[in-house]
Every structure is written in structure tokens, then in C-alpha cells.
């Protein structure tokens, strides 16, 4: 019984590790989604990329590999917003969540 449990644990670990590696690789553009795969993430990505919708001229449904780096950097490129007090502007409307 113990051996079976250990094997299950090893199998689970390999699945989790494999999924993480494939997801990271697809983000970096090493693995393309249309090469097929077995993980949930790959199936989902394949569906998105394979959708035969008509593209507008600017559209890029597959993000460029550089976006992985942009995603990593995005969280650190923010700066503090200025204080509101010095800006005395009469606004016509207000952008708010609705």
C-alpha cells in the first residue's frame, strides 16, 4: 500500500511539474500552442489560438513572447499618483465604475 501511495505522489508531482514547465515555456514562446499537448492550460490556449475569427488589421491574438517580460516588469513600473489638492480642475463628467 505504501508503495502505491508513493507512486501516486510521484505521478502527481510529475504532472504538476510538467504543467508548470509547459506553461512557462508557452509564455516564453518556446512552445507554441498549436503543437498539441495534454495539460489543461495548453488545451485552453489551443482553443483560443485556433478560433478562426476574422482578424482586424491591428489584431494580434497571440501575444508576442516579449510580453512575458513585460508582464514581469509591469508590476514594478508603477509610480505614486500625484496629490489631488494642487489640481483644481472643474470636471464635466467623472469616470467611475458602474
Amino acid at each position: 500500500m505504501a508503495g502505491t501511495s508513493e507512486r501516486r505522489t510521484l505521478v502527481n508531482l510529475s504532472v504538476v511539474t510538467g504543467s508548470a514547465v509547459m506553461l512557462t515555456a508557452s509564455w516564453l514562446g518556446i512552445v507554441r500552442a498549436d503543437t498539441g499537448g495534454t495539460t489543461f492550460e495548453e488545451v485552453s490556449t489551443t482553443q483560443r489560438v485556433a478560433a478562426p475569427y476574422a482578424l482586424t488589421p491591428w489584431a494580434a491574438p497571440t501575444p508576442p513572447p516579449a510580453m512575458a517580460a513585460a508582464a514581469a516588469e509591469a508590476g514594478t513600473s508603477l509610480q505614486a499618483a500625484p496629490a489631488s489638492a494642487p489640481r483644481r480642475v472643474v470636471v464635466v463628467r467623472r469616470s467611475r465604475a458602474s
Partner: protein
Amino acid sequence: MTARAARAAARPATLEFRAMNTDWWLSASGGVDLRQAEATVHEAETVLSRFRPDSALTVLNRDRESSHPWLAAVVQRGLELEGITLGAFDVRVGAALLAAGYDRTFEELAGRPPALPPTGVAVDGPLVTVEGERVRLAGPGLLDLGGIAKGWTVDLAAGLLAAAGADHYLVDGGGDIRGCGVGTDGTPWAVGVGDGLAVALDGAAVATSSTARRCWRNEDGAAHHVIDPRSGLPSRGGVRTATVVAADTATADALATAIVAQPRLGLAGLAALGADALLDQDDHWVMTPGMERWLK
């Protein structure tokens, strides 16, 4: 045309009405008929609303196929923005919204318990196919266009005003706003954002998404309408409010939703599209470096 009539035509007219469960405000110069734009907004609601039993979107979710040029355009744009935000924005969160309790209009939801218990299943939505005006769904799951439809409709109305000859106009669809030209004081339209700031909109759009609006309580506690597509649950990413300035309102609307849902991926999409954002992140107001150019 007399000088008096010319002055009257140049003076912007305004119109207020209610549609898509929110308040709309239009202003345009050039004597443009704002009622036509209003009619278009109402028509867009009949096509894109998840809460109307006869809308093209409802037909699509029920019959798995629907044909309408506006529905196809919005869904296609949503798919594009899903790719650009690496999935932080996803129109396939309809089932997750239902599971979170957002199963009726927010006006009807207020104070009432949700009809369904929260499940928190990951969004594994249907395969979406857009071919011409026809949209088809394969596999389980529902579409929700709540993160893009209103912004897209603002763009539609703005396009009508411009085509009718308005050089200066502002379209406000419940806080999703597109402006062009100048206001009555001769300066670009000033729109309030964040905590006492304002942006100048001349040929640009702004939209805001927040977990503080359209929120309710379910069996798991507080819930809101911005679903994290990875978890299928209302987002808990640390960004409470996101205001985005972009070239068009549909993009601003979707990016604001994406940033609240998945801040890091949403901001990457924002950078890829050259847009800017002001965020309430962990109770601090922060912004992208490029936001400064929009502040008035």
C-alpha cells in the same frame, strides 16, 4: 443660416438618458441630433445584454449560435483583448458570474440572496468561433460581455456623432467616456478620475472598473462582478479600482477589467497597447509613468 442660428448650432447640445442599467450623458456640437445616438445605445442594449431574454447574446448562450454584426464585432474584439492580456480579460466568464450570484441585473440583485451557490470553478469556457456576423459556441460555458459591451457602445455612439458632423463631443456611458475636441470653455474635456484628479480627453477614452461597485454578499462572504478567469471567483488581486485611458473606450473598458482581475497580466496588456492606468492598489493610488501626460 443667420448668425444667431449659426451660434446655436455651434453650441453643444446635451442629452441624458438611462440605458444598460446606468446613466448616459451625451454632448455634441454642430447641431447634431443626439436622439439618434440615444436610439443606437438602446438598440445595442437589446443585442448585447445578458439580462434580456431576446438579446442576440442570450440567444447565443442558449442556442450556441447567433448572428448579428454588433455581437460578432464585440465578441471578436473580446477575443483579441483576451490574447493581448494573456487571458486576464475573458468574455467566457458568464458561468462563473452566475455561480458567484450575478444572475440578474444589479438593480434586481441588491439586497437579495443569489439564486445559485458559489462554486469557484475555473473558467473553462466554450470554444468561440466568429465567422462574419455569425458567432458559435462549442462546449459548455456562457459568454458575458459586461467588461466590454458598454465601452464598445460608447465608441459606436461617438462614431455616429462624428459622422453626423460633430467636431466636439463627449459620450459618457456610466463612467466609460470618450471625448473629442473641446468643451464649452474651449479646453479639452476634463473628466474626473481617481482621488481628485482629472484627465483631458481629446481623441481618447477613459473607463474605470472597481470591486467596490456591483458587489453583494453570497455564502462565501463579499462578492463582486469582476471574475478572475484563472480561479472563476471574484478577483482578489489587490487592485480595487483601475482607471484606464486608451485610444478607444472598448479597449479602456476591457483593460480596466483585466487589471482588476489579474493586475500583472492586465498591466502587460496595457503596455502592449500603449494605454495608461491609474490604480487603487492595496489602498495606495499609483499610476503608469505615461499617465502624467493625460492629467490636467
